[in-house]
């Protein structure tokens, strides 16, 4: 699949406003009844511009927080990572890190994140993870984080899906409230009303002898399929009105031609297209670095380059200048990795890692942490960075303060979050 390069895009980007869309008419969509097991809820406000659009980025595989945001002032870090450590910012190494202050640094491959950080719109939350499960299984840990409650295999829906289910649509007639730039819906959005995975937004359409026949067939008894089909057909109509290939990012931003870059570019197109989108998810794979991790040149370095340049471009495009887009981006990973590197120049599954938040209303320009230390007795089980901040604290604060939804007990069942000051 060829993506046009942004700097040579030729078509004028066709802006489709919500009002224009309503004039054009959509195929109509079923309303979502509130599930009976949810506690009674107060609907969040649904006036325009009251809530942020939430962009969720999931680093799958357990990203190494001790490389992504490395504690250069903790001498134990260099003892634990003889071959994998990032050189100190004040060293003369060409690979020296970029200081975020007197304690933490970013690897040089994450340079595109410096501008949003220095503008106070990028925040890192460190030694952050899942306090209520010690699972080191990718699948369990991902599941627990995405469903918003650990150690519970009965929950089938995602925390972000439940936010959407307990808030009125920002736009009553939009056929798609949430999307995921993936094949299949991630658990974060499982069960979300009016949501659809759109792996290739630019070529979203249906080939059929008769759309009308298709609609009639799915209007029958296959209830969940019906909603999916009807909303799907309406979404096709809608996305076809957006010119993804001709999209021109603002402020000279350039999205790289890689998976994450192109996914965030598509999300930016949909946000600017004002189509009623409230949440978008994207996965970044390949963070499971058991062997030959390559913090400086290699797999992890390449992943960090892709991650940082995509976020950097998205920040420049969506969060800078006179743009009034209200958007918050969250990047999470299921767990971190062992503090000590293993015998194969990699790291095994660990506990705490780092989270990133980005947005105009995020209390950025700092690393929020209760640093537990890296000495053996400070590590969990003598091997892992301790979880001192539960990720749900951070997610819940964003849900309440930026998504204007106070139904935290439905979104994060059986948990009382402690806000950590991640929003302004």
């Amino acid at each position: 699949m060829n993506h046009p390069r942004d700097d040579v895009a030729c078509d004028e980007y066709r802006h489709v406003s919500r009002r224009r869309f309503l004039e054009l008419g959509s195929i109509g969509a079923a309303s979502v009844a509130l599930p009976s097991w949810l506690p009674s809820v107060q609907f969040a406000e649904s006036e325009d511009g009251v809530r942020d659009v939430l962009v969720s980025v999931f680093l799958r595989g357990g990203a190494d927080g001790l490389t992504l945001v490395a504690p250069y002032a903790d001498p134990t870090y260099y003892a634990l990572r003889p071959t994998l450590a990032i050189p100190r910012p004040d060293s003369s190494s060409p690979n020296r890190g970029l200081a975020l202050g007197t304690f933490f640094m970013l690897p040089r491959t994450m340079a595109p994140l410096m501008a949003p950080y220095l503008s106070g719109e990028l925040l890192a939350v460190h030694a952050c993870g899942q306090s209520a499960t010690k699972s080191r299984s990718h699948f369990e840990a991902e599941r627990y984080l995405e469903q918003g409650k650990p150690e519970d295999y009965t929950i089938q829906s995602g925390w972000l899906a439940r936010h959407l289910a307990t808030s009125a649509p920002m736009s009553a007639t939009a056929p798609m409230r949430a999307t995921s730039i993936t094949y299949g819906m991630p658990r974060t959005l499982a069960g979300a009303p009016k949501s659809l995975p759109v792996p290739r937004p630019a070529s979203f359409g249906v080939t059929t002898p008769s759309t009308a026949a298709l609609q009639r067939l799915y209007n029958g008894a296959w209830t969940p399929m019906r909603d999916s089909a009807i909303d799907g057909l309406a979404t096709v109509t809608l996305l076809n009105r957006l010119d993804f290939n001709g999209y021109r990012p603002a402020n000279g931003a350039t999205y790289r031609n890689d998976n994450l870059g192109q996914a965030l570019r598509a999300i930016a197109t949909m946000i600017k297209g004002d189509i009623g989108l409230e949440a978008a998810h994207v996965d970044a794979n390949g963070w499971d670095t058991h062997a030959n991790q390559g913090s400086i040149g290699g797999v992890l370095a390449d992943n960090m380059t892709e991650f940082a340049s995509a976020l950097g471009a998205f920040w420049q495009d969506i969060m800078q200048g006179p743009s009034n887009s209200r958007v918050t981006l969250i990047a999470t990973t299921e767990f971190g990795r062992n503090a000590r590197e293993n015998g194969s120049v990699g790291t095994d599954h660990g506990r705490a890692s780092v989270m990133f938040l980005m947005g105009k209303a995020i209390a950025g320009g700092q690393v929020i942490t209760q640093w537990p230390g890296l000495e053996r007795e400070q590590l969990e089980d003598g091997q892992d960075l301790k979880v001192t901040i539960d990720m749900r604290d951070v997610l819940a604060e964003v849900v309440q303060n930026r998504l204007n939804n106070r139904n935290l007990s439905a979104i994060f069942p059986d948990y009382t979050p402690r806000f950590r000051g991640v929003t302004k």
Partner: protein
Amino acid sequence: MKTNRREWLKTGLGTAASGAVLAAAGAALAPAPLAAQLPSSRNARLGGLLSQLGQQAFWKSPEIRLLRRTSHGHTAPQVARALELGYEAYLEEQLNPQRIDDTACDSYIAATYRDLLAMTPRQAMTIADSGSPYFQLIRPLGRMTVERAMLSERTLFERMVEFWSDHFHVPIDGAYSLKLFHDQRVIRPKALGKVSDLINASMRSSAMLWYLDQVWNTKWGINENYARELMELHTVGWDGGYTQSDVRELARVLTGWSVDGQGIFQYKAELHDFEAKTVFGMNFPARTAGTGAAGMDEGIAFAAMLANHPATKRFIAAKLLRWFVRPDPTEAQIGAVVTAYTRSGGDIKAILRAVLSLENIMRAPAKLKRPMHLMVSALRTTGARAVPVADVRRDFDGLYFPLEAMGHRVGGWPTPDGYPDRAEFWAGMIIDRWNNVNTVLQVANTASGWTIVDLDPFLATPTVEGVVDAIRSRLFGGEMSADLDAELRAWLTAGLTRSRVLDALHLATMAPEFQFY
């Protein structure tokens, strides 16, 4: 207690239950209704759906149901065969694939993939190292797998190959492109053998040992990756009762299980940790370091324990029930399968007889086809065939790329747990399903066409009635919804041209009931 077919049908569940059956399928679909999360609300919901469903009762015939469950779509001869043999005899035939003549499929595969099948692990590794395994290894293996599913008469066997390939998942790209040998030497020969043999073979699978970093796990540097997955994904399951300490200790037990330079399993005693270990209730006392196979007996003993562990039986029983029967197997169903496992010493055929019992299949809610199943069933039921295009072998490339686009490429899942077997994961892709199922039915007279559907059988009786009956019989085993019946009639009444018949086939494969089995 076994119910024979006659008694079963007398209970009347043959009709009433299939309404509930469809409703249950609906409740499990995505976007997964939040209400489906608590049993009580779920049942209330089913009641509501049931009344909406009215008398739409699909697939009343036990043989057709069994055939749908145990194949990637049925062919006309298979439908005839299943009805002729009856439920038990047909199941028994499928459980013994060597009794089924599969010469046509085998000779096609042998001729088409001669180079691939003649390859040695060392050659594959050399190609992988050269950095371009795509055309020589990855795509041919993906296509061969799909084509076997499409052409084989041994349909239950192919469904089990798919099941175990997800269970003992090794990605097709990575692990030095050794998946070919995992497929040919581990999964396919043992897919209907004994569970313990499969576990043992997978522990000696070079692809697996590379993929899950077991080759890096030595007494000097422990790598837990394979030890964890051996318990979590392959045997006792995530809730099997092991601890992080068990994972670490098992990793020590497995030090030395490695791969040689030829890409073949090799136990290397010099890498083995001979110190004392305690793992999951088993004690391995410290020993004097030895050579040869010294220390390998620890892993072998532990694997034997795992294969017989109650948690393993439960885990595999529930997973097979989800694969063939329902997303939420009952305790009674799991118990019956576990009993069959225990009595037969883990014989997969005996386990499958319990899973595929008449009661289970007649109570089974309709299940959403995963993309590969959907695509292959479109080809099998319509009788589509590949058309060689001059000097370019396009055979079923058309199936390979759509699967890639739908995230269901053979061996393409990025993590060790294998592709999800959950409807809610796949159901949101309705748009892609519609589009791609059309793709494989394209007539091959365009630059992008790949296959030809032979329309003649559908036009054997060239009337609207005749074509609709043919579609009902070939695509749905003789049972189709009134809604689809009406749409097809309306479409064909406007003219019985070949292109309209092809359109009618498109519409039928896009219909709700074709998405399920």
